[in-house]
């Protein structure tokens, strides 16, 4: 078991920092390039959601925790912002509350497709917690 915790401002500049940090952290597991890319993209989606939606009137914090045990990687991205009032709707492909800002609405779809499991917990004004899991392949070339 190995774990790490990052806390950073919910600003777009930190998206690259977040995904690169996770990629670096899991490197000892010798993930395939494809696995690294999937995880980086999923982390970027979760952090983007926090940056874009969580704090409309201030710059709040994002907490990113990551741990792994054998070949199972867990990533939790958490904010303390406005939350989501209808999580089921938010998870629908192409649904976005910010269509006018040209947001595609497929962030959660990308996360669920690229990771093995994604769990989203949220309540209004209580932030959002996204827990993603990926099992790395054991039979590497």
């Amino acid at each position, binding site marked *: 078991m190995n774990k790490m915790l990052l806390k950073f401002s919910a600003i*777009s*500049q930190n*998206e*690259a920092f977040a*995904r690169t940090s996770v990629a670096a952290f899991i490197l000892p597991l010798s993930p395939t390039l*494809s696995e690294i*890319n*999937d995880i*980086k*993209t999923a982390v*970027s*989606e979760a952090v*983007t959601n926090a*940056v*874009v939606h969580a704090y409309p009137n201030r710059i709040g914090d994002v907490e990113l925790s990551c741990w792994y045990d054998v070949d199972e990687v867990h990533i939790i991205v958490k904010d303390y912002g406005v939350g989501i009032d209808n999580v089921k709707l938010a998870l629908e492909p192409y649904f976005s509350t910010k269509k006018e*800002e*040209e*947001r*595609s609405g*497929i*962030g959660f*779809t*990308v996360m669920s*497709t*690229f990771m093995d499991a994604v769990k989203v917990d949220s309540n209004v004004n209580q932030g959002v917690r996204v827990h993603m899991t990926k099992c790395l392949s054991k039979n590497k070339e």
Partner: protein
Amino acid sequence: MQIRYSLENFSLYFYLQGELDQHYAKGVKDYIDNILEETKGYKKVVFNLADLSFMDSTGIGILLGRYKKLKKLSVSSFLEAPKVNVEKVLELSGIYEVMPKI
């Protein structure tokens, strides 16, 4: 993230380089929209992604936004040479139905 363009035989090419996420979204949109407005005589637009090393769904929103603008001008748009990881996001989004890969 860097972007440049060229006009070749009525085709307007945009070359995207680096990592495209929310941080560069506005800059990329503004750059492309300015060129689309200022340039005359193009009949199609190609987004070359050969040097784009990362893109998340924010990029899909940007590309679809440009597609919609160009459609109003009856200009077709295309995607070219995405890397494997970018391709995966593009395929998942369904964007190839309106912006084919050439």
